[in-house]
């Protein structure tokens, strides 16, 4: 870039001429060098600063081109996988059609044994060929193994085929920021897993402080915006940045209330609650910030306001995660909160098990010192009692003088006489007598004594007992006071001085009394006392509320605050506990695996126990986030989950044979036979026969009802109970009455109906099933509602067996299945083809794009050769002229002419 220097208007000196010419020559040479450089490198800019704007654009273009080259390689690789998948699936449908033809041949007529064997062989070889397709490996990747692409997905094991792959797709980037799957899983194509069976149960975990915001709303989560909390005058904006769990949110809200206010945030039964401190008044509102939806998603959007009362949010329905505790599912625990003035002393009582049974239990803190004349418990020696029968209210009257202390005990075993004050008043000159009266308004029992001190302890006792509300008894607890002396006088000085109070000492059955020393006993000591009573501690946990921090600046321990004489009643318990003691049974073909859940703490433990029990099943969280599911990996075997003597499988929604199982699903969809009239007959221990007609029965429960409510089964002579098997699956019949006939049996007899077989009550092919000897008499039917893997391998394995067994009905069913499998394979193949096509399209587009990008880059940084060369020529001419001028200018001098 040549610079033009102005020529000065004044004198010209030789040095000036010289330096200007030199400058000019240098500029020309520099310019020529630059052009030469451009022409030889092909670049118009050597270093970015020559044209920062163009260079800036070039940086982006270069990066994009580099990325697109990688994308192009990705597409090539992806295409190669998809092409291999496509061609691998090429022969599969013809294989299945071949199997169909073989089966049809074997099913149509009675065929000779050798032909049958040939057919079985043929199906076997089709299975082998299908295995080879399904276990195809390409570029170190098993194409149908999902993301577990290092191992062959289908494995032959004891005549079955196990799917070891998963349902996860492998993806590559086919555009910057856009992923596409490059595989089809074995499950998608061939079917490797059974579908979920049983009644899906919403395990409904409760919300705890560690529940993540992203797990709320059934897994939809909460967007991390901001909410605005206001007391009507001042507001505070709370951002959810850095907030992960509900506990984090609560702490953030409480730490950032509207200026000068206190907001209490709690989790109450899957809801958030917020409350302003009552003292400051105002109107609590929760609003969105901008056009956010965070407050609404948290269920606490409240633009109108609730004053200083509690804002109760909506149910936030957390989803089940691996970390959900088993204690926190299927119901809630009863709880109560003991909130006292002062810091570090709030307590929570929480039941140790779910359910409503522990609702309504009273917990009362009792001032032990008021119960007798002796000093009450000292701090550190508190104790807890739970009364099964109920306890009467009690108060001590410690009169001055000796041998006259009394204990007054209420006559009712409940809390009706709690908080009754007992006062000593003057009765005038009444001699050795006392008058007792009760003031219901003031809840005060007044004992009037002689004004001269003539009233004796015995007179007071008699008067109290005579009044009937309390009974008085001597109190010898205080050793200083000496032994009880009925004649001991009550000094008149005790009037208005000595008094008693029943406080919280009385309570109905089940009430838990915590005996404390007010002002001295700390929350931590109360907890220690609580845990000192194992019977109480096993029902309820008493713990610190946690947020009731000690007053600022104090270094007290978190439970160091003194407790108050509070009472609380537990509430909110619902649902039931998961049966963790019995476990469940998984049946795969003839093998039963028992899963023991004892000691399991979390949902993850349950899944691990199930997956650990057998590698034939896959237990995972159901995709809707409500519960868990267990699916079979084994093609060719029946699959069922039953109980192991308890209710675990049903509670977890895993049992495959339940009361609501439809009969139409029995026997792999063939259902249960139902003929007009009697379908099967039961004979009771006493010989009474029950004819069972299944007309109109839809579910297992209907069958059970038909038996249990049979008119002949509800008489006084005892009856058969039909129920679901306690171990495994099936219908179980129990008769507890003594055997007087031939014993309990189920008879298909000569009836045309095959219902007894189809329900599994009588082994197929037999006429009757009889209860084995033993008491009580019991017949457990077999499980005819087992599931299976729905896929080509299962169909073919079963077909092979059906052809070998000559079981025409099964062959017929499986021929239908093959069509479904064919559809699935063809559908998958079409999907792969469509993806291939899409990738082809992307590739073409990418090639075009690359051309555009390169030309754009070239425009920015490449040199225009024509221009550069002509510039060069022009420059050369100018330089030549400049040199000539220099020569001539320097040659001329006046001296030449002197």
């Amino acid at each position: 870039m040549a610079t033009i220097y102005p020529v000065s208007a004044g004198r010209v000196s030789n040095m000036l001429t010289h330096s200007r010419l030199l400058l000019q020559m240098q500029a020309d040479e520099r310019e020529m060098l630059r052009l030469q450089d451009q022409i030889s490198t092909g670049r118009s800019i050597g270093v970015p600063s020559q044209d920062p704007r163009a260079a800036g654009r070039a940086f982006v273009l270069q990066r994009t081109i580099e990325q697109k080259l990688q994308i192009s390689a990705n597409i090539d690789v992806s295409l190669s996988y998809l092409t291999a998948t496509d061609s691998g699936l090429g022969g599969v449908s013809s294989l299945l059609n071949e199997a169909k033809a073989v089966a049809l041949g074997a099913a149509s007529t009675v065929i000779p044994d050798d032909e049958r064997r040939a057919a079985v062989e043929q199906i076997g070889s089709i299975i082998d060929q299908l295995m080879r397709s399904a276990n195809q490996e390409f570029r170190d990747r098993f194409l149908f193994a999902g993301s577990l692409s290092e191992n062959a997905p289908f494995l032959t094991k004891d005549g079955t085929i196990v799917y070891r792959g998963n349902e996860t797709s492998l993806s590559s980037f086919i555009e910057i920021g856009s992923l596409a799957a490059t595989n089809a899983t074995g499950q998608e194509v061939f079917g490797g897993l059974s579908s979920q069976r049983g009644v899906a149960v919403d395990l409904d975990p409760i919300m705890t402080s560690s529940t993540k915001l992203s797990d709320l709303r059934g897994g939809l989560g909460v967007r991390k915006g901001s909410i605005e909390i206001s007391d009507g005058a001042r507001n505070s904006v709370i951002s959810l940045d850095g907030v992960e769990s509900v506990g984090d949110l609560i702490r953030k809200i409480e730490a950032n209330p509207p200026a000068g206010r206190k907001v209490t945030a709690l989790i109450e039964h899957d809801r958030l609650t917020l409350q302003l401190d009552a003292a400051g008044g105002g109107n609590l509102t929760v609003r969105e910030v901008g056009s956010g939806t965070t407050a609404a998603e948290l269920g606490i959007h409240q633009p109108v306001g609730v004053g200083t009362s509690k804002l109760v949010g909506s149910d936030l329905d957390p989803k089940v995660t691996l970390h959900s505790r088993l204690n926190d599912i299927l119901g809630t625990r009863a709880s109560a909160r003991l909130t006292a003035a002062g810091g570090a002393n709030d307590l929570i009582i929480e039941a140790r098990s779910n359910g409503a049974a522990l609702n309504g239990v009273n917990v009362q803190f009792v001032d032990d010192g008021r119960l007798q004349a002796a000093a009450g418990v000292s701090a550190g020696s508190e104790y807890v009692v739970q009364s099964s029968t109920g306890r009467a209210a009690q108060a001590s009257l410690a009169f001055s003088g000796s041998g006259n202390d009394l204990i007054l005990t209420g006559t009712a075993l409940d809390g009706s006489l709690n908080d009754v004050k007992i006062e000593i008043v003057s009765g005038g000159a009444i001699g050795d007598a006392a008058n007792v009266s009760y003031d219901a308004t003031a809840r005060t029992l007044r004992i009037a004594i002689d004004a001269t001190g003539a009233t004796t302890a015995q007179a007071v006792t008699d008067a109290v007992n005579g009044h009937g509300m309390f009974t008085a008894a001597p109190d010898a607890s205080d050793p200083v006071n000496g032994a009880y002396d009925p004649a001991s006088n009550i000094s008149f000085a005790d009037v208005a001085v000595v008094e008693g109070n029943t406080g919280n000492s009385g309570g109905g059955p089940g009430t838990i009394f915590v005996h404390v020393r007010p002002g001295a006993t700390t929350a931590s000591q109360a907890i220690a006392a609580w845990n000192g009573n194992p019977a109480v501690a096993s029902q309820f946990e008493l713990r610190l509320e946690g947020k009731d921090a000690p007053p600022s600046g104090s270094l007290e321990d978190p439970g160091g605050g003194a407790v108050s004489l509070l009472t609380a009643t537990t509430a909110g318990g619902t649902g039931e506990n998961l049966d963790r003691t019995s476990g469940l049974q998984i049946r795969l073909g003839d093998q039963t695996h028992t899963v023991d859940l004892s000691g399991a703490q979390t949902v993850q433990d349950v899944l691990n126990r199930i997956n650990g029990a057998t590698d034939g099943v896959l237990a995972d969280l159901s995709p809707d986030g409500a519960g868990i599911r267990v699916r079979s990996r084994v093609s060719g075997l029946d699959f069922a989950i039953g109980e192991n003597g308890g209710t675990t499988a049903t509670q977890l929604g895993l049992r495959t044979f339940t009361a609501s199982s439809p009969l139409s699903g029995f026997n792999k969809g063939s259902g249960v036979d139902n003929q007009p009239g009697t379908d099967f007959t039961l004979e009771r221990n006493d010989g009474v026969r029950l004819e069972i007609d299944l007309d109109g029965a839809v579910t297992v429960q209907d069958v059970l009802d038909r038996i249990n409510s049979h008119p002949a089964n509800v008489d006084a002579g005892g009856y058969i109970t039909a129920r679901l098997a306690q171990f495994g699956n099936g219908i179980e019949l129990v008769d507890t009455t003594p055997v007087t006939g031939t014993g309990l049996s189920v008879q298909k007899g000569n009836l045309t109906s095959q219902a007894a077989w189809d329900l599994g009550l009588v082994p197929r092919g037999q006429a009757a099933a009889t209860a084995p000897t033993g008491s009580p008499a019991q017949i457990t039917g077999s499980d005819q509602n087992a599931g299976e893997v729905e896929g080509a391998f299962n169909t073919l394995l079963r077909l092979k067996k059906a052809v070998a067994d000559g079981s025409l009905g099964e062959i017929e069913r499986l021929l239908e299945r093959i069509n479904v499998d064919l559809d699935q394979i063809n559908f998958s193949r079409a999907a792969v083809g469509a993806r291939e096509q899409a990738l082809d399209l992307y590739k073409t587009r990418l090639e075009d794009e690359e051309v555009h990008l390169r030309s754009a880059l070239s425009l920015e940084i490449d040199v225009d050769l024509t221009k550069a060369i002509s510039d060069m020529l022009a420059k050369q001419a100018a330089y030549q002229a400049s040199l000539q001028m220099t020569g001539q200018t320097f040659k001329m001098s006046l001296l030449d002419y002197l």
Partner: protein
Amino acid sequence: MSLTGTLQIAHNALIANQVGLQVVGNNLANANTPDYVRQEPVFTPAPAQRQGGLLLGLGVQVTAVVQKIDLFLEERLRGSTSDVSGSEIEETAFRELESILGELSDTDLSTQLTSFFNSLHDVLNEPSSAATRNLVVLQGDTLAQSIRQTYDRVLAVKEDFNNRIGQTATDINRLTSSIAKLNKQIVTVEGGSINPSDAVGLRDERLRALRQLSELVGIKSVEQENGSVTVFVNGEFLVAEGQSREIVAEPRNRQSDPRLELLFKDTNSPITLLGGEAAGLIAARDTHLGGFLDRLDTFTKDLVFEFNKVHAGGQGLAGYSQTTSEFAVANVKAPLDAAGLPFTPENGSFTVLVKNKQTGIVEETKIPVRLQGFDDDTTLESLVADLNAVNGVSATITPDRKLKLVADSSDAEFSFGPDSSGALAALGINTFFSGSGALDVKIRAEVKGNPSLVAASQGGAGKDTKTAELLAGLYERKLVSRDGASLADGYQRLLADVTQQSANVIAVADGFRTFKFTLQGQKLGQSGVNVDEEAVNMMQYQHAFQANAKLIQTISELLDLLVSI
């Protein structure tokens, strides 16, 4: 009036014209001497002589020989020289920087960055291949090395510039003492203001010294009546009469900050530099090179932390039987975000996965990282306690305050799941990059030795490629933690700023150069020797000499006539 008087006039004229010719000769001789200032004799008529009623002139006399110089122009030229030399230094710094970066080529850092992230695409293409993971490690290593090299090379340039500041001080001292010496000589030779002639030669020399000084540092110079110049730097005098103040270059802090700065030796106070090489060196060192180093370091830090945050929450093809955190905390009882870690974790959680190698069953435990500014915020100690509650893993704090995790049995191995807190990355556990900036970024030795630890999976060791998907897209992803900018944006901005600043500095330098040449042109026009002009002068003196010689001849003839009477 006498003939002898006239003879005397002619004699004087001859001498004057001889002086004229001598000045012409001197000018012609120095026609090509740089910094030479053209001279001019000053002719004045000699005082008149009263003779009777007449006042007769006594001819000519040369009263002085003066330099043709515009001192104001000189001063402006010196200012401009300072500007040019300062900005040329800055220009050099950027040229070096740009050549080190080598952008727009195929070997630049941006290509290395893209290649590294591209290598992760290959993991997605062939997840089970060990070779692709190895490639990620190799590309990562190349990237880390390139970043370190770039940093080191720029740092070397920066140090070189720093050393030159030391050299500048020596040069300034040499020039100021020479100016002080010349001041004394000029005053002596010119005899103060008594002698109207300029101390030619000495003044030229002083001019040259002043010009050289102005190249090093921006100065103001004022000529005093006695002919000496006083030189100021930002109002503080550097040279006065025969005195000069010594300047020293001292590091800002001998232990921690080796950056040299210029100080007056006598008062130990720093000099505020307003131009010249010294100011250019400091600007180039601190603002341009130092600024670039800081930004490269910040970018690297972002890259390392963002990448590690994702990587730490993923699993490789195998788990760990033991691992130790890379970074130590300063205080094991301090919350992790205030424990002196190079990266800052935030409130969140991560998961630890313990796998039984016999059964293949994985147990996942969530570890909360509480960092909300409350008393129970997670510290290294509490983290260790939480980790020890995990079945199958034991955590300890090493004597050098690092976190160590060991699997409880040889049948167990552990790995880590999604980390929303960044605590794993901040501590340096299950990370890909080690180091915390451009100076020390490397591939973590554990990963380098065992590329199967490159985390591609999110659902368990070797189970899927979800982490690789996140990592491959990381460079272009808009990050909430970086205010919605991607790492690519960050590097792009870094480059654009260097380029733009470089272009600006070059444009400014060009402007200064043009201005300087313009001033120089004016100066040369005024003070430079024009040979033709001198030839004209020469002829003029020659003719005057001839005429006076003729006068002498005439007088001589007249005297002869008188003698011969």
